[in-house]
C-alpha cells in the first residue's frame, strides 16, 4: 500500500465523513480532493477512456453526496465508494455491450491490430533493449485488463492498484473472500498469458523503462 493511500485513509476519518453527512459542502469537497484521483484512476483502468472515466468519476461523487446519509458505518466508506464506482462501471459496460456492433470494418481493424501486435512482440523478442514508453505499457496493460471478465477485472484493480484487503474487496462486491481470491488468481493467470504473448516480462520492463 502506497504512502498516498495511507494518507487518504487517515484523512478520510470519521469526522470528515460525518460533517459531509450533515451537508457540510466544504467537508464534502475535502473528501472529493482526497478520493477523486483514486476513483478516477480506478474507473480509467476499468473503462480505458479518459472522458468516460471523468464522467463516471463525477457520477460517483454525485451519488456519494446524495446517499452519504445512508452510510451508517463511516469506517466502510472506502468499500462503499468503490462499490458505487464499480456499479457505474458495470452499468457502462452493459450499455456498451448492447451498442457494440461487429461490422466488417471492425473485424478488419481487429485483424490489422492483431498483426501489428505480433510485429511489436517479435521486434521486442529480437531487440530487448527497445525503448518502452510508459504510456505504451499502460495502454497494453489497460487493454488486457479490459479483456478480463467484469468480476475479475474489478478484483484485480482493487487489489493491485487500490490497496484493498481481501475482506474489503469482499465487502465492496458483497461476496466472500474466497471468491475474491479465486477471481484474482484467474485474472492474474489470464494477464500472465497475455503478457507472455507480447514478451512483456520483468526483465524487458527493467531494460525499457
Amino acid at each position, binding site marked *: 500500500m502506497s504512502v498516498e493511500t495511507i494518507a487518504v485513509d487517515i484523512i478520510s476519518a470519521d469526522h470528515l465523513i460525518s460533517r459531509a*453527512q*450533515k*451537508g*457540510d*459542502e466544504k467537508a*464534502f*469537497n475535502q473528501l*472529493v*480532493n482526497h478520493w*477523486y*484521483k483514486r476513483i*478516477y*484512476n480506478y474507473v*480509467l*483502468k476499468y473503462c480505458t477512456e*479518459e472522458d468516460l472515466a*471523468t464522467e463516471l468519476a*463525477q457520477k460517483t*461523487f*454525485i451519488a456519494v*453526496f*446524495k446517499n452519504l*446519509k445512508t452510510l451508517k458505518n463511516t469506517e466502510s466508506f472506502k468499500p462503499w465508494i468503490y462499490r458505487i464506482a464499480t456499479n457505474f462501471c458495470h452499468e457502462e459496460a452493459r450499455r456498451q455491450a448492447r451498442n457494440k456492433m461487429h461490422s466488417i470494418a471492425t473485424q478488419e481493424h481487429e485483424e490489422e491490430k492483431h498483426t501489428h501486435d505480433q510485429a511489436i512482440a517479435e521486434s521486442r523478442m529480437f531487440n530487448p533493449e527497445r525503448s518502452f514508453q*510508459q504510456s505504451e*505499457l*499502460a495502454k497494453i*496493460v*489497460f487493454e488486457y485488463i479490459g479483456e478480463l471478465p467484469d468480476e475479475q477485472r474489478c478484483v*484485480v484493480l482493487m*487489489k*493491485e*492498484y487500490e490497496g484493498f*484487503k*481481501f475482506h474489503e474487496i469482499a465487502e465492496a462486491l458483497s461476496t466472500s*473472500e*474466497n471468491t475474491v*481470491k*479465486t477471481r*484474482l*488468481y484467474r485474472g*492474474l*493467470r489470464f*494477464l*500472465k498469458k497475455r*503478457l507472455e504473448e507480447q514478451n*512483456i*516480462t*520483468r526483465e524487458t*520492463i527493467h531494460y525499457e*523503462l
Partner: protein
Amino acid sequence: MSYKVDESKLMDYLYGELSDKEKKQMERYLQENETASAEFEALKEVQTVLGRVKDRETEVPHFTFPQPSVVVSDARLTPWWRYAMGLAASIALLFLMGYLTSLRISINDGGVQIAFGKNDSQSNQTYSKEDVENIVQRLLASNNEIIEEKLDQSEGAIIQKISQDKFLMNADTLNEYLAKLWNLDQETLMGIVENSEQHQKKYTDEMLRSLAIYLDVQRQNDLELIQARFENFENNAEYNQRQTNQILTNLIGTVAEQPINQYE
C-alpha cells in the same frame, strides 16, 4: 508434508496477508515444489508488470450543491400539532363564514343544495296544473281591467283635447254629434250616397272635358311642328338645287371656253 496449498493461500502469500506461521509453511512448500514455485514466480512477475503502470494525474472538480440536504430537511420538519392547529383554525373559519353568510347546505331528493341568505319557505311549495291555470287567469283578468281603465282615461283626454284646440267644441257637443252619426237611418244614408255620386259624376265629366281640350291642343301643336319641319326641309332642298344648278352652269361655261385641240 501435511500443508496443502490452494489458490486462496497462494493469493494470500502473494499479497502478504498470511500469518507468520503460514508464511513459513508456504516458503518451505515452494522450496520443495518446483511447479508451485514457478507458478508463484510467474504471478509475481505479472504483479511487477502491473505495478509499473502509474496513476494518471487529473484535475479535481469542485462540487457545489444548492443546500445541504440535512439542513433543508430539518427546516421542512413541522410538528404534528401545527398541522392540527391549522386544520382546526380552518374549520372554525369555515363555520364563521357560513354563519355570516347564512350558508345552508342540504341534501334532498334532487341532490345537494347550497344556498346563502334567509330560508324561503315557499320555495319548496309545489303547484298543480289547475293552480297554475287559476293564477294565470287571475293575472290576465287583472291586467285587462288595468288596460280598460287606461283606455277610458285616454279616450276622455283625447275628446277633451280635440274640443278645446281644434273645433272649439266642448265635450258634450262632440258627444252629441257622434251620437247622431251612429243614429242615422237608411234613407238619410242613401241620400248622402246619391249626393256623393252626383258630385263624383260631375267631377268626372269636368276631368274628361279638360283632358279632351288638352289632347286637342296638344295635337294642334304637333301638327304645327310637323308643318314647320316640312317647310324647313323644302327650303333646304330648294337651296341645294340652286347651288347645284349654279355649279353646273359654271362647269358648262368653263368647258365651253377651252380650245378643242387641247384634248387631242
